[in-house]
Every structure is written in C-alpha cells, then in structure tokens.
C-alpha cells in the first residue's frame, strides 16, 4: 500500500495536536449535523486523523489498513444513503445533486433558517461532553500514552456515546458506534498491534456497517422514519 503509506507519511507533521483538533472538529460535526453527506465527509476525515495519530505508536502500514477499513465503511454508508434516497425520493426532486449545488443549498439554508433547535442542542451537549472529557483526560490518564492521545481517545468515546444516545437513525447510530470503536482502537492498537486483532476489529466494523445499511434500507423500503 505505498500510495496510502506515502500520504500518511507526508501528513506525519499533523500527527499530534492538529490531528486531535481534527478529531474534535469532525466528532463535533457528526454529533451536530443531520446532513448525511456532511457526516460521511466528516467520518472519512476522522478516520484519516485517527490513522495519523496511530502512526505515532504503530507501523505506518497498520495505520493505513485501519484508515482503509474506515473509508470502506464510509463507502458502504454512502451507497446505502444513495439507495435510501432513491427509494424515498419525491418525484419532483432532481435525481442527482452536484456538489456545488448541494453546498450552495446548505449555505442558503443556514443563512435563511440559522441553526436548528436539534443542532443547537447537539452542539451544547457536545460542548459539555468535550469539557468533561478534557477534565477526565487529566484526572484519569491512560497507561503508556501521550496526553493528546488520551484526549483523542476520550473525545471519540464520549462524543460517540453521546451520538448513540441522541440518534435513532441507523446510520447515525452506526457512526456513534464507529466513533466509540475508533476511540478504543486508538488506545488498544498500541497495546496489541497484532494483525489478527486488527482483522477482527475490522470484521466487527464491517458487520455493523452492513447491519446498519440493512436497517436503513428497510427503513426506506417500509417508509418508516422513526423506529
């Protein structure tokens, strides 16, 4: 995997506090945003930042494999959302939306309506969790780990659990689960960097991704928005 390895090696300078900030921003975005496109971009970026952090403790190739697994999950979610959209799409709506049109639409929506109550609540809850995590990271340090690592682990786990608690949409619940898994993986990969564990971790992620995709497709097929 030379290309991916090269990419991660070049981004190596970010593999410290900038990556932690990236993890925080993407995790916060995932909690606050209800837009699936934005969420998938944030999730993909989060996997990159997590892989960058991992390069500090494990071989580059192993971190690249982890990133690749994460991006494949993003791809599964993307295809699922596309499928769900095509199943539930209103007849007048255009079938494909160009990226710039979508972005312009989002901007116009934000300008017109501001932040929704749901997003405001999510933002407030995410800030509260982040403050708690920041305090916890200094009070409960994890063994053999740098401070920024601990912060990233706790942020991912805390905001992942928050997302699990706030969401009913299968894909958002799935994203919450992946955040919790990423947070723990960040800690565990330095303790147990074996390929078998990485493989089984990947299997868990894939089965969860397929399960969530199955539920999402059923939701679209049966026309039920809420569980």
């Amino acid at each position, binding site marked *: 995997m030379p290309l991916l390895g090269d990419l991660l090696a070049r981004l190596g300078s970010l593999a410290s506090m900038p990556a932690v900030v990236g993890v925080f921003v993407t995790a916060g975005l995932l909690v606050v945003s209800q837009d699936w496109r934005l969420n998938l971009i944030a999730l993909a970026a989060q996997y990159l930042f997590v892989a960058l952090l991992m390069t500090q403790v494990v071989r580059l190739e192993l971190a690249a494999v982890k990133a690749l697994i994460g991006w494949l999950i993003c791809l599964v979610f993307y295809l699922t959302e596309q499928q769900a959209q095509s199943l539930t799409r209103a007849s007048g709506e255009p079938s494909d939306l160009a990226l710039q049109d979508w972005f312009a639409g989002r901007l116009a929506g934000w300008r017109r309506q501001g932040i929704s109550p749901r997003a405001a609540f999510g933002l407030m809850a995410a800030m509260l969790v982040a403050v708690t995590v920041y305090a916890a990271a200094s009070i409960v340090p994890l063994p053999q780990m740098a401070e920024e690592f601990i912060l990233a682990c706790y942020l991912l786990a805390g905001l992942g659990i928050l997302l699990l608690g706030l969401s009913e949409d299968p894909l958002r619940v799935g994203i919450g689960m992946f955040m919790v898994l990423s947070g723990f993986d960040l800690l565990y990969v330095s303790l147990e960097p074996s390929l078998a564990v990485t493989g089984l971790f990947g299997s868990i992620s894939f089965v969860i991704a397929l399960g969530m995709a199955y*539920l999402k497709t059923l939701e679209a097929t049966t026309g039920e928005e809420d569980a």
Partner: protein
Amino acid sequence: MIAGLLLFLVLPLAMAGGVYALRRWATLSALLSVGAALILGILIVVLPLGRTVELWGRQIVMGGRVSLLGRELVLEETDRIAIAFLYLTAAGVFALAWRVSPGTMLFPVGMGLLSLFSGSLLIRPLIYAVLLVEVAVALSIFALQPEDRGPTRGGLQYLSFSLLALPGLLAIHWLMGRYALTPDDRTLLDASAVLLALSFALLLGSVPFHPWVASVAGDAEPLASAFVLTVNNGAVWFLLLSFLETYPDLSAYPGFATFVSGAGLATVVLGGLLAASQRRLGRLVGYGALVDTGVALVALGRASQEGLALALLVLFVRPFGVVLMAAGLKGLQSWGLREDRPESLRGLANDVPLATMAFLVGGISTAGLPISAGFAARWSLYRALAPSNLLTTLFTLLASAAVMVGVWRALSLLVASPASSDEGVGGREPRGARDWLTAGLMVLAVAASVAVGLFPQFLTSTAVRLAGLHTFIVR
C-alpha cells in the same frame, strides 16, 4: 484425520451459507438448520474426548489443541457441555421457528452465530473470544429485525450496549497481564475488577444496563429475541466463566461475591416490578428473562460450587420458559395480534389455544413455579439461600410471583370475551396456526418443559458436573 473441533466452526458456517441460499424453500432451510444443530449438539457429547473415531468413513479426533491461522483452539470438557447447550437450544428454537416463523433470517444467522460462539469457547487467548462474541452480537441484528417493519430499537440497543462492553473486556486482558508482572500494583487489579463488572453487566443486561433486554423482547422477532436471550446470553455466561477461570484473582477479588449478589438482587427486584406492571406480551418475556438473569447472578454471588451449579441450572432451564413464551407470542401474532397492545389480546385464547398454552407454560417456567422447568433451579436456590439470607430469598420469591402476576394478567385478557367484533382477531389470515404439525410441535415443546420440571435430574447433574470442572471458586 479431521480435528473434530473444527467441525463445530466450519460446518455451521457452511450451513449458514447453504440455508441462506435456500431461504425461498422455508421448510427445507428450517429442517436443515434443525438437523445440523441437533446432530452437532449430539455429536459433541457423544464423541469421546481425546480418542479417534471413525465417522462416515473419516477419522475424527475430538479434543486436544489445534492451530488455526496462528491461533490456538482448545476443546475441554467444559467447552463440550457449553457447546452442546448452545447447539441443542438453537435446534429447539429453529424447530419452533420452522412452524411459527418460517422463512425468517434466524436460520442462516443462527447457524453463523453458533459457529462464532463455538469459536469463542474454543479459541485462546480470551481477547479473540471477546472479539468473536462481538462479531456475533453485530450479526444478530439481521435476525432480530422483522422484515416487514422499519428498524426497531431492540437490535440497535442490544448492539450499542454490547459494543460498549468490548473495550473493558479487551483492557482486562492487558491489565491482568501487567498485574501478573507487578502483583504489588493493586490499581491494575482494581481497574480490571471494575471493568469486568461493568462489561458483563452490559452484556448480560443486568441493572442498570437492562433496557436492551425488554426492547429486544418487545419489538424484535419473538423467536430471534428468544435466541438472543438463551443462546447469545448463554455464550456470554460461558465467557464470564472463562474470564473467572483464566483470572482467578478477579474471582477472589474482595467484594466480588457481594457485588455479584447485589447486582443480581437489583436485577431481580426491578425485573419483578416491571414484569408485574407490564401489559405487553413481548416486553413481559424480556422482564421474565431479566428476573432469570438476576436469579443466576444471585446464585453465582454465593461464590461456591453449589451456587455456580445453581447459576448454570438456571441458564440450562431458561430456554424451556423464554423460548416457549416467544413461540406462543409468535403464534398469537401469526393469528392476528398485529400490535402488541393489551386491547388486541382480548379473546385470542379461543382462536389460538395452543399458542396461549405455550405462552402460559413458558411464563410459569420463567416465573419458576412448581411443576415447571424453572422450578427445579429456583427451589434449590431458595433452599440454599434461606438459612443465610432470608431477605434475598424473599425478594427472589416475590419477583417470581411478580412475573406470574404479569403472565396472569396477560392470560386474563387472552381468555376474556372480545369487546367488539373487530377486536382480537385482526382480520389477517391465520398462518399455520391450526395445522397439525404446528400443534404437535407446540404440544411437544410444552410437554418437554413439563417433563424437565418433573424430572430435572439430567440437567441438575450436568450443571453440577460443569460447576465441578471450574476451579475458580474460592470457598
């Protein structure tokens, strides 16, 4: 020569694929699942450990150590009993699902789960067992989700709670490894004990992590939820015992017994209260199972061979209650109980007496009333507990009565006259509710539950034998 233990990993997995491909032929796929689970469940008990036998022209050796993809697989006597329990329970669930829930995803997914759980019991070290159990939990979601409805909360909650248990269980392995090197560092042991308690409370659905149990039983496919509450739950219990066996310092941890008893008692009390006030049949099954889990924890908290045997006996007899209740519920749903609401229950007993009977007998067993499968374990526990802990005995008894109150309330609605002609039967065409095969299977399941209640000696002796094989009990 074939390493016998590989059969229990490869065959169910191959069957899962085959059964999925044959899903269109519901009877064939169901019978294949029943047959495979039954044969493998019997084989693991019948084939002698450590000796070579010839089966279908091939030499098979059971037991010993096998290396698979660099990991070690070990089959011991404890694993044989555990695997036999999982396969035979699954065979029972599949058999009932064949008639009351044909064409369900439970058959292929269930076979896949059996392979993963067998792997989790056989593989060393324990971190791989934990990861395999988590894969199995994630896979369960496909069976739990009814195919004619949108996503239900049960499966998502089950997966979420179970996933939160994963970090703790993996961390224990590392922490105990460090503790073995630096035994003076008690913080490692303290952290491991806390993580063990939290993780298994999440996985078993003990209070305060119980919401998923009622959700799974309430809105998932009834027999798939019964599979989760018996087979999946059984695999988690065996994983807990493996942890305690592998790390005796954790079972000898000061306050371990008190904590387990306390968690069990809280689960029993809350489960009983919720069961008595519950009017939805699905959630009642869940609360019944919750009380059962609490009782098993109370038994384990006795920290003795007798307590462990009682906990295992509770686990062994659980299918005779929970699976029967779920089969009865599915039978009622097939007839016309479209929504699990009390008003829909009125008068259904007249239309589907066998499903009602299955639900009632299963409920009696889950409550642990006399002449039911659940009674043997409960009665033995009351007798063991009463001299030393009268209050716990009283609460456990009251919780059993509370489950029965819930069942009784459901029954009173089922036998009541429908308030109007459009209530009760929902106008749906009955599906296999009155054919002789379904009736025969229901009667057979009810008879098996009563028979185990009258003659529990086989299960009791198996539980005692299995408890005797565990050495972590300190007093």
